[in-house]
């Protein structure tokens, strides 16, 4: 039970989140080449998630063990995504008949 954060801090974070949302939507009107739009959108989403995690979910003032628990889910997600996508991305590198797709 830590001392509660101030209202101003929460509102500042909220405004930052709205600004990032406006940035995502605004950028979507421009023609970014290739995957850059996706990369930018996901980066902005990560930034928003980090702001929510640190300030709204109190990870900035949580005990170390709670932070480890919070990080664990994302670590396993990173394993899931990176190992699976490594497979799919690298399949096209060697020409084999009958590979998917």
């Amino acid at each position, binding site marked *: 039970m830590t001392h509660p954060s101030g209202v101003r801090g929460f509102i500042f974070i909220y405004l930052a989140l709205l600004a990032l949302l406006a940035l995502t939507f605004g950028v979507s*009107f421009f023609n970014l080449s290739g995957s850059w739009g996706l990369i930018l959108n996901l980066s902005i989403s990560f930034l928003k*998630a980090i702001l929510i995690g640190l300030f*709204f*979910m109190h990870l900035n003032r949580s005990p170390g063990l709670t932070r480890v628990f919070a990080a664990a*889910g*994302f670590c396993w997600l990173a394993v*899931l995504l990176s190992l699976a996508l490594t497979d799919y991305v690298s399949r096209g590198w060697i020409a084999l008949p009958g590979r998917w797709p």
Partner: protein
Amino acid sequence: MGSPLNAGVQPQEQFKSIEQQHEAATQGMWIFLATEILFFGGIFLAYFIYRRSYSIGFERMSEMLDSFLGTLNTAILLTSSLTMALSVRAVQLEKKGSLILFLVLTLIFGVAFLTIKGFEYSEDFKNKLVLGPSFPFHGLEAVHMEMFLLIYYVMTLIHAVHLLVGICLVSLMVVKTVRSRCLPALYSPIEVIGLYWHFVDVVWLFLYPLLYLAGRPHI
């Protein structure tokens, strides 16, 4: 650790102190959220794999979704996260009036999100963006577009179910707060429900660009 919040609240017998009990509760919630991250992660993985191969169909289908409503809903969920964070603050400060106010505001924003989503589904049905024989497109690309639609419905419906659970939990907290004579006893439940609520918000923050902005720009 002395805290003004533990006055009058006894920990359950397996815990040494109310702080330890609170820590155990939040850590338990984070373990549950880790399983949820992996649960949603599997669907996100499917999205990424299919988007790589079916990119044109995905972009065409994504353009047909209402990105304005998607953006509005994102803003609503972010606002509900703010009011949820303020609810947790209110219970920490033992302010019953503002706790009820912020919980009810959170509820209103949650219900508003689901209402807009429901309206959006009905528009999708009107535009025949539904899997099945009435699907208006044909050919190989149509198969790819249907895959996007399938992922869209599965992801948004599972997200909506999660939000519905959150709404039920917050409603329960409103009732408990109104009846409560000892607000500190509600600190752990509200904090833990807050963690869940923020998590559901974070999932949407990733769904939003992947589903609504994949096809842009139109110009």
